């Protein structure tokens, strides 16, 4: 196995992250702070606690998930789309690099970046709300699984996209609405019964709910269901990537 190739791609992508560290980290921190000011302090003070958790604390897992998912997708999609766009992807395709090694390099880097951003948001949240994490190990597992899974999803989008518009269309029109409607800022118990049932069709809801469980020990659905949901999505993404590399779809002419 060409481990060195995977490390090389990983380092190359992380170097891109370092070059744009200000934009990569400061922007999410400022935006998160605004969420806390608006939703936590201004609006949150008017909302009663949810399952015994203050609203400011309640939205922390949702905010982390929001960024974790969107950053994972964006980083991974850009990571593979940019070399396709400038043509430098030929280097990876003509090198003795297997699909697994390329995926580990690109997806590993994207997942690392979004995990760092997720942790920075968590640290930022501590400036606004105090909270104890009930199951820190589960939280860490959820962060890692979500970062990897959504980076895999972003990797697929980056390969599929043939222009910049396509690169952003799925994150903008599909993922962001799913994250917002998946209970990032509210409990689905607050919704009318019909919309509660609709929310159960949203896969992102299972992830946010499970992640919230790791913080507070309570959630709308069993934690096992959340883990099954994320592992299932990961398996689907891995299968699609395997097919992409096998067929050369939008990578090889």
């Amino acid at each position, binding site marked *: 196995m*060409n481990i060195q*190739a995977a490390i090389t791609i990983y380092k190359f992508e992380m170097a891109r992250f370092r070059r744009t560290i200000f934009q990569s980290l400061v922007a999410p921190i400022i935006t998160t702070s605004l969420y806390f000011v608006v939703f936590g302090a201004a609006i949150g003070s008017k909302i009663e606690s949810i399952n015994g958790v203050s609203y400011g604390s309640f939205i922390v897992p949702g905010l982390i998930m929001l960024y974790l998912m969107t950053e994972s997708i964006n980083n991974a999609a850009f990571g593979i789309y940019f070399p396709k766009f400038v043509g430098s992807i030929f280097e990876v395709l003509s090198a003795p690099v297997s699909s697994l090694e390329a995926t580990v390099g690109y997806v590993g880097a994207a997942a690392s970046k979004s995990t760092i951003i997720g942790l920075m948001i968590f640290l930022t949240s501590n400036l606004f709300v105090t909270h104890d994490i009930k199951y820190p190990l589960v939280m860490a597992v959820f962060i890692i699984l979500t970062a990897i899974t959504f980076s895999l999803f972003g990797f697929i989008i980056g390969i599929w996209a043939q222009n910049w518009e396509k690169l952003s269309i799925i994150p903008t029109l599909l993922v962001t609405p799913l994250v917002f409607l998946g209970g990032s800022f509210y409990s689905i118990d607050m919704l009318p019964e019909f919309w509660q049932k609709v929310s159960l069709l949203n896969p992102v809801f299972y992830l946010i709910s499970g992640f919230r469980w790791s913080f507070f020990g309570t959630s709308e659905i069993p934690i096992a269901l959340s883990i099954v949901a994320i592992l299932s999505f990961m398996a689907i993404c891995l299968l699609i990537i395997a097919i992409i590399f096998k067929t050369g779809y939008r990578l090889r002419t």
Partner: protein
Amino acid sequence: MFPLKSKKGEIFALLGPNGAGKTTLISAICGLCRQSSGTIKVNDFDTLSQYKETRNQIGLVPQELPLDGFESVYNSCQFSRGLFGLKDSRDHIEKILKTLSLFDKRDEQIFGLSGGMKRRLLIAKALAHEPKILFLDEPTAGVDVSLRRDIWKLIEDQKKMGVTIILTTHYIEEAEQLADRVGIINSGEIILVKEKTTLMSEFSKKTTFIRLSKKLKDPSFMKKNKKISLTENGMTLKLVGINNTSNELQSIVNLLSQNGIAFTEINTVDNSLEDIFLDLVETQ
């Protein structure tokens, strides 16, 4: 089976008109395009089932300038080397950068390089993992004369080091200058593969120009000979493919004397590889 084999340590020039399939062939060998049928072997390794072994041996310089402009020159070369499973070798990369006159630019972002420098950087990247076979897809397209000569020298140096060079080019002069063997491809098929010297001698045609002392008004006497044509407003006779051994030229000179036509100069030139290439492609 594509009827093309290259030999170790040679420069093989692949010539063909636009759209002939030169880049497609290179792409298929290097894994850049999907191979629908057929077999390609690189030193007995199959490019599909043993792609790691084949690609390990190959360095590719593409026709375009596909580079990540945000990266530094050195890191870009290091990236290329790492993809082939090799650890950082500052000595090797710096040596290549020095050879290609890029050492002073090693820490600069690729964006800031001129077109010629980017072309050299692509060569440096292809050499970063010390390949046994180097594919150069029109390496001197759009570069100035000086850089072209530098690239030619680099290609010859690589050959001396035992690297097999496979070169596609539009510049027939380039193939004539560098190649040991020449392959001609047209419409996806190899028309011919020959040693350059054999090709030049086998397909050699001499063209003789006879400069007349005055304009020829009545060329009817030579109409039977299809090898002769009149050019430059009747001031020059052009004789294509005249065979030296059959005294054809002497016969024509005699014919001119019999018709009272004087001449001031006879000039004979060999046809170039370019003429041979055009003849072969046009007769396809």
